[in-house]
């Protein structure tokens, strides 16, 4: 291999391996292109500010003489910023070093010399693909005012307004939506052009040589045609001949068709996109949600569990592949997605960090097979998030456990236990049950003894539970010791968990009191 070749290749490998370079490139990529950096919105706001100030200066210039400083600002400084941005985006588009390496590997495989020409060609076509894209062209034109000697180029400042499309999500969405219907819009355009042209010619023929008529050139005829067909009707030009008026009538009637056609295209494209837009918005809001429960399957059980957890103050996200149930979940006020929880793509689309954001995943589907499948899918991308699943058939318990489920709830066994108690000492059992289901405003509560609390409330007595009509059933100390019915003078330790029961409102009062005094 020739020495220049090896130099190029070594350079490419060096860049790939150079961590600092890659991390800088990633930073800018997330800032500019992917918009996932936390600084993205500041960057966007700054750019929008530059664009607007640029346009306002231009507007101001029309009537007033503006200071030299402002002119310089508008022409040089803003253009400079946009130039930097333009160059950055070119750099971010694709990776030249990767290209070189790929070519090198290909050539090695085929046992031939490094094809430098091919590399150069590919690099150019890569970067050029970006340069000729519409947003890149707009960016380029926005820099043009740099050359302010040409007065006309000052108007290019207006191109900066088009840059707004990049920075404002809603305009971007609007344009994308209309883009989906570009064929229909094109058809409409052709149709309208033909009618306008034909009627323009007709009115021109009818009116051009007539005395007292205002329409005397083809341009005026076309202008009038367009104004009429769009139902605007300025009234600056009006036909005076009978024939001209007939033409007018025809245009007006077809104008109604044109307007309705155009409106319906826009409306239908939005309606079709609406679900997608809403979904994307939901996924975006998901990025900020911390510490939520992910519930898979919105059958009755999923519904009830979601309700209970939400009442206890948690955030819930629901996944169900049945569209009607996903809708129901949304109706009940949860962030819900109509995705299949057994597919990897569902979790990728959600774009969440399972470790950092999800408290636990609850797989509550109606069949053991689905739950096993869900668990397997999740474990393939994440090993640590806790998964809880219900078990329908005892024989499948091991499968669930092997699939990676941490906690298995076997409903039948549970029901068996409860049913047994109902027959045993039903009154006692009912008392506890009623407390657990929090009817009558009476609840069970756990109170964790922090260092904070320990300082000011070293003994149980100091909580004044009697005053709040709160019963302390016991203190859980460590993993094994449960101190039942403790004496009030007992000394508390850090990490103790008090099990209390009483009226919810009074427990909250007591908690407020302990926080208030501290």
């Amino acid at each position, binding site marked *: 291999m020739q020495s220049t070749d090896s130099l190029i290749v070594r350079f490419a490998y060096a860049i790939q391996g150079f961590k600092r370079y890659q991390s800088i490139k990633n930073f800018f990529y997330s800032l500019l292109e992917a918009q996932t950096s936390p600084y993205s919105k500041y960057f966007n706001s700054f750019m929008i500010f530059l664009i607007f100030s640029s346009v306002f200066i231009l507007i101001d210039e029309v009537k007033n003489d503006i200071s030299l400083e402002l002119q310089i600002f508008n022409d040089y400084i803003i253009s400079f910023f946009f130039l930097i941005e333009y160059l950055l985006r070119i750099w971010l588009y694709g990776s030249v070093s990767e290209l070189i390496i790929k070519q090198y590997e290909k050539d090695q495989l085929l046992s031939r010399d490094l094809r430098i020409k091919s590399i150069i060609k590919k690099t150019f076509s890569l970067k050029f693909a970006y340069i000729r894209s519409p947003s890149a062209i707009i960016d380029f034109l926005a820099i043009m005012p740099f050359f302010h000697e040409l007065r006309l180029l000052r108007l290019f400042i207006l191109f900066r307004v088009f840059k707004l499309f990049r920075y404002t999500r809603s305009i971007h969405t609007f344009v994308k939506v209309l883009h989906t219907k570009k064929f229909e819009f094109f058809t409409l355009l052709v149709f309208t052009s033909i009618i306008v042209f034909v009627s323009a010619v007709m009115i021109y023929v009818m009116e051009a040589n007539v005395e007292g008529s205002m329409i005397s050139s083809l341009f005026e005829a076309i202008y009038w045609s367009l104004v009429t067909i769009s139902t605007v009707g300025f009234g600056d030009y009006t036909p005076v001949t009978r024939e001209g008026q007939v033409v007018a009538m025809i245009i007006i009637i077809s104008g109604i068709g044109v307007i309705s056609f155009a409106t319906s295209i826009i409306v239908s494209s939005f309606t079709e996109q609406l679900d997608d837009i809403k979904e994307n918005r939901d996924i975006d809001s998901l990025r900020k949600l911390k510490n939520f*429960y992910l519930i898979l399957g919105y059958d*009755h*059980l999923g519904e*009830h*569990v979601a*309700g*209970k*957890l939400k009442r*206890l103050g948690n955030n819930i996200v629901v996944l169900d592949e049945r569209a009607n149930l996903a809708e129901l979940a949304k109706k009940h006020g949860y962030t819900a997605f109509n995705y299949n929880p057994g597919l990897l793509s569902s979790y990728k689309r959600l774009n969440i960090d399972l470790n950092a954001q999800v*408290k636990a995943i609850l797989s509550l589907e109606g069949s053991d097979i689905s739950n096993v499948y869900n668990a397997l899918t999740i474990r393939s991308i994440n090993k640590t998030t806790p998964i*809880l699943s*219900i078990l*329908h*058939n*005892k024989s499948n318990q091991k499968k669930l456990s092997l699939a990676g489920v941490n*906690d298995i*709830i076997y*409903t*039948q*066994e*549970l*029901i*068996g*236990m*409860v*049913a047994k*108690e*109902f*027959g*045993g*000492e*039903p*009154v*006692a*059992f*009912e*008392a*506890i049950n*009623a*407390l*657990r*289901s929090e009817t009558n405003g*009476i609840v*069970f*509560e*756990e109170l964790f003894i922090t260092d904070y609390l320990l300082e000011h409330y070293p003994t149980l007595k100091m909580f004044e539970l009697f005053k709040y*009509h709160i*019963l302390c*059933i*016991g203190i*859980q100390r460590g993993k094994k010791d*449960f101190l*039942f*019915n403790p004496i*009030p003078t007992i000394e508390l330790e850090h990490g103790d*968990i008090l*099990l209390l*029961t*009483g*009226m919810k409102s009074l427990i909250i009062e007591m908690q407020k009191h302990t926080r208030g005094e501290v």
Partner: protein
Amino acid sequence: MIFESVIIFGYNDYAQEIARQIDASYEYIHIYTLEKEENERAIRDGFNASLFDLSDNWDELVQIEDITKVLAYCVLQHDEHNTFLTISLHATFPELFIVALANDLESANKLRIAGASKVLSVVQTTSEMISDYLEKPTLNSVLQNILYTDSKLKLAQIIIGPDSSLIGVELHTIDWKKHYNVLILSVTNDRLNFEYVFTAKGHHHKVAEGDILVIIGYTKEIEKFKEEVNHSEIDWGHRSW
């Protein structure tokens, strides 16, 4: 309210678990099933089982002397059958204690109206269990311990007899710790109205004959308490907070 024998209607997964769990506690258990296959399974598992149908033919049961000593579980697969069965049973044996299983809240309501003494809502119970497990783990494990395992810490109910020295006493005024290490959770005069001792109403409730006290404590203490509470000579010292 001590039952001597148990009848289970149905032998699906739930019924099987119930049968398995109560097997040790009752002398006589009989299983009635609607389908032959379930019947055979029950027999294979070692239970007395027979087929039945939903007609109002309760000849066998009518022969039982004291129906109040029988505990009936209605655990048929379909909620409609279960409801029908419950109505039928309740109409024929109004004093029979029926525990019925419901698969959803709507059926639960119907079963209550049909005359079930206790309705077990599968979905509700499971969801409560799951949410407690996740959100109040300590509480959950303590309660599980108290309720379901054979731990020394237990739940018990005590009926106040006519000679009890507690009659006329306001519960909150008594310092239990002087005498027994038990916690009184609630008092009720019939199966529906619980007065929890820590509510304002419960606090000032004066104990009456026939009241049922629900207490938590260690087995020994509970036994001691049971014995002595219906004794008329104990002096219940007053609480000194």
